[in-house]
Each structure stands twice: as structure tokens, then as C-alpha cells.
């Protein structure tokens, strides 16, 4: 197998006395959908924040595309090819849907220290923006304010913004959370289409979706990765079954 696009070594983080990330060793390979599952409070979002740079680890290293990014800023990691969505949609609510996408396109194209020309009249921006709007199915809603569209549409918009930079690694934090069955299917379909084009690190509670989408799965329990493998291996792993015993999630 090729080298992992993202790997962590002995990654650790504690908030005061609470250890939320305890020597995590994770490898995400190019083109794979790698799901990260675990009970509530296992430290999944913390791990994503460490990977994307919103938190700095107490110890350990992170390597992305062959570069040590442990102390790299959030924007620098993004420019290196990392994009993410958040558990709670993180958008520019007073911007229109189109403006949200346009800004995402602008961010990865040329300098934003341009004080005169309008990005909404620049074909280099509107072109890719139109494609992205179609791709995530928001063409009809382009002129609506991002804060006013439905929850599911906001999630789609966030994915659209994340795709603008053609990232090498897409980090998705519970993209299906709070979605109805139809929207969840649409989201799963969208993620499936991305499979192979980029590495995807997916945190998700919807186990049906996880086992349907993921190439490999890592199980995080109390800040440690207790197992990594294909869906069947994870299902049959005794430690995993034990960790989930008594919780509502059934594998």
C-alpha cells in the first residue's frame, strides 16, 4: 500500500486532568474513505480539531502529504490540501449561498488582497462556483441567505465549500447529523461520488452509512484507537463489541 496521506504518531491531548486523546496512531490513505467511530465522548471531534489545527496537541506528531504539520496554522493546513465540515454547520449566515461558495473558491485561487475587482464578476470564480452549486444540488437556492435555508441544505453547502479547494483530504464531522432519511441518502450519495477522488476522514454516528461507505474503520474509545480495519473485521472484533456493549449503537 502507498504511504498514508495523513498519519499521526502518539498524538495526545488533555483538557486539565481529562485525557481526551491518548497516544493516537492513525493513518489515512489516499483515496480511501476512513471512518472514525466510537461512543459519545470518545474524543472524535477533538481528534479532528487536532488534525485540522484548531487545537494543538500536548505531544505527538502529525504528518500530512509528507510534511510535519504538528505546529502548522489552520489556514496553512488548508492551503496544503485539507478541508473540513463541522458537526454544527459553519457558514457565513448573512452571505447568500452563492457568496459562500464564491468565497471558498476565492480562498484557494490567487490573492485575496485585491481591493478593486469584484469576485462575483470574475469568471475565474463564478465558473467553478456554478459547478460546485450544481454538484451539491443548490443551484436553485443560490440567491438565498445561507442562514435561512434548511438544515440539510446547509450541510450540503458546507460540503460544497469544502470541495472548492479540491482537497487531498476531506474531514467530515457527522455530515448526516440531524438529517431526515431522504437528505441522509442524498448526503451518502454525495460522499460516495467523492470516493477515490480524495481521502475522506469521516466521523459519523449513523452505522448503516458508515459500514456502507467506509473502506476502513477506526474505533476510538476513551481517546485511544482500539481497532482499525475493514467493516467485517470491526464487526467481529471483541474489543469493539465490548466498547459498544450497553450503548444504543448496535453494530
Amino acid at each position, binding site marked *: 500500500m502507498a504511504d498514508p496521506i495523513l498519519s499521526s504518531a502518539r498524538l495526545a491531548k488533555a483538557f486539565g486532568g481529562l485525557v481526551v486523546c491518548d497516544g493516537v496512531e492513525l493513518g489515512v490513505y489516499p483515496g480511501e474513505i476512513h471512518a472514525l467511530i466510537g461512543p459519545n465522548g470518545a474524543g472524535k471531534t477533538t481528534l479532528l480539531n487536532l488534525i485540522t489545527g484548531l487545537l494543538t496537541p500536548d505531544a505527538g506528531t502529525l504528518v500530512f502529504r509528507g510534511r510535519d504539520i504538528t505546529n502548522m496554522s*489552520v489556514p496553512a493546513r488548508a492551503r496544503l490540501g485539507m478541508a473540513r465540515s463541522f458537526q454544527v454547520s459553519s457558514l457565513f449566515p*448573512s452571505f447568500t449561498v452563492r457568496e459562500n461558495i464564491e468565497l471558498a473558491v476565492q480562498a484557494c485561487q490567487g490573492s*485575496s488582497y485585491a*481591493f478593486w475587482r469584484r469576485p462575483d464578476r470574475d469568471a475565474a470564480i463564478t465558473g467553478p462556483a456554478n459547478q460546485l452549486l450544481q454538484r451539491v444540488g443548490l443551484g436553485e437556492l443560490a440567491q438565498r441567505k445561507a442562514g435561512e435555508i434548511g438544515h440539510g441544505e446547509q450541510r450540503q453547502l458546507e460540503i460544497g465549500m469544502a470541495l472548492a479547494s479540491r482537497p487531498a483530504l476531506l474531514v467530515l464531522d457527522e455530515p448526516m447529523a440531524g438529517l431526515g432519511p431522504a437528505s441522509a441518502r442524498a448526503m451518502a450519495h454525495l460522499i460516495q461520488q467523492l470516493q477515490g477522488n480524495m481521502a475522506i476522514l469521516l466521523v459519523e454516528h449513523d452505522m448503516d452509512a458508515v459500514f456502507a461507505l467506509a473502506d476502513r474503520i477506526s474505533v476510538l474509545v476513551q481517546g485511544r484507537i482500539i481497532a482499525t480495519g475493514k467493516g467485517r473485521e470491526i464487526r467481529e472484533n471483541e474489543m469493539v463489541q465490548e466498547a459498544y456493549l450497553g450503548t444504543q449503537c448496535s453494530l
Partner: protein
Amino acid sequence: MKAFVSMRPRLLLSVAGVCLLVVLPRLLELTGQEYLLSLATRALIYSLAAASLNLILGYGGMVSLGHAAFMGIGAYTVAILAHHSYESTPVLAFLPFLQGTEQALIVWPLAMLLSALFALLTGLIALRTRGMHFIMITLAFAQMLFFLFTSLDTYGGSDGMSLYGRNTLPGIDLGNDTLLYYFCLTVLVLFLFFMQRLVRSRFGRVLEASRENEIRVQVLGLAPFGFKLTSYCLAGAAAGLAGALLANQGEFVSPGMLHWTRSGEIMVMVILGGMARLTGPVIGAFVLLFLEEYLAMFTEHWMILLGPFLIVVVLFARGGIHSLLFDRLPGGRRAQHNG
């Protein structure tokens, strides 16, 4: 094309506003109220200062309570250079070649440069803080400058100092009050044009995005700090120019120009007129200054009347007076919601 036609009422209202400002000196003359011309000129100058605050407060979401400091730097640049020009002494004793001057083309760019420099130095520190801390730290920097000028006895200390005349500009007699009015109007219109381009540019988009959601901007690969600092310096430079104009208009400077209450007044102009709306601060500056003038005719306790007025506007028009005037027109924000 249809969109353009439906925008017309808003465009007409804006054009009417500019026309009113153009004919205002003549109107005042016809009605025998020439004494109001200097107030109108001051309102134009404060419009410039408030518009520059709007860039960082309205568009950038940075609640700065130290904007008067930039005006003060601009004003004192004019006064100090003029002072040394009268006395034919060097500005700094150890740099004898640096003489004072009254040339606007030298003094005003210098005023803008020094204000921008002050913005850069204080912004590097202040912009690392958020919310209430940012308000307090900008306030603190401005007060430091206030006390500095209060203690400079050479330049009048707390009494301030008068100028013997206005700066000289080739081709325009700034000593003529009507010409000064039109000059300030031109500067304001040019600045608003520049700002309109700025807020719609790539830079402006990132600035507004940083106000809305800084984390998202970072995750998209942009560092908000540089955009905020740049806009802070631009706003500082424009406010510095406003200060230089104000010193010329009143032919007087004093530390009172950079007291924090003055910063508060500029902020009220922005909020009253309408934040993140291009011409909002202009409306705010004129309404506030003229209300002060007229209310003061009736009672010396005019603030008792002004206070409730401000509260009513803030409660019932979140976009300020600008939203009351423009939003219901076709093409306005309210109209768009309904249609």
C-alpha cells in the same frame, strides 16, 4: 435590465441626497442661515470619519472605541507643522532639516501616514483580542494619546492651540468657507466610491466573512488577522485625513478632539445611520450634529431628548436610519424578503 429598473428608486434617493448636499450652501444663503455652513462642513468631515469607522465596525465587526485618536493625530499633524512653520523652527530639535509647513499636499498625506502607522502599531496588539477586550484596548490606546497631547505644553497642552490660517492647496483657496465645504464633499464622495469598490472586492468579502465566522475563514485557508489589520490601517488613514480637515475647518486643535467621548460620538453616528451600509454613517453624522445644534437651541439639557431618540432608532431600526429610508423601496433589503 429589469433588476436595474427596479433599483431606480434607491438610486434616485441617493442622487437626491448628493444633490441636496451640492445645493446646500446656496440654500443656506437664500434662507439667511450662512452660519450653518461651518456645521455642514463639520458634518461632512465627521461623515468621512464615521464612514471609515464603518469599514472596521460595520463590515469588519471590530468595535473600536478609539477612532477619535486617528482624527487627533491628523489634526495635530496639521497644527504642529503649522506651529513650526510660523516659528521657523525644526519640528524635532535634533533633525534641523525637518521644517514645519502649511502645504496641504505634504501635511495631509503625512497625517494619513502617521494615523495609519498608529493603527498598525496598536492594531498589531489590539486585534489579538476580541469583543469587550478589543473595545477596552482601543479605548486605552486612544486615552494614552489624549494624555500625551494634554501634557505637550509646547503645543498648548490641555488648552489646545489655534492656527493662524488654513493649509494651502494649489488652485483651491481653502480659506474660503464655501470652497472648503465643496472640497470636503468631494473628498467624502471619492472615499465612499473607494469604499464601495473595497467592500465588494475580494478583500471586502474576506473582511465581512471574518466578521461572520472567523473559524470558517481559517479553515478555508485564509488568515483573518491580516485582513482585519489592513482594514484597520485603511480606516485609520481615512480618519487621519478627516482629522486634518477638521483642524483646517475650525483652525483649532485640542486634546478634546481625541477624548474617548468623541470616539463614542463617531460610533453613535455609525449605529444611528446604519452599520455596514455605505451611506449610513453620512446620514448618521448629519442627523446627530444637526439634532445637537437644534436641540441645543431649545434647551441646554438637549442630551435628555437625544438619548431617547437614539434608543428608539436602535430598537426599531436595526439597520439605522438608512434602513428606514431605503429598505422598503423596490430593490431594498426588506422588499427583497417579501418579493
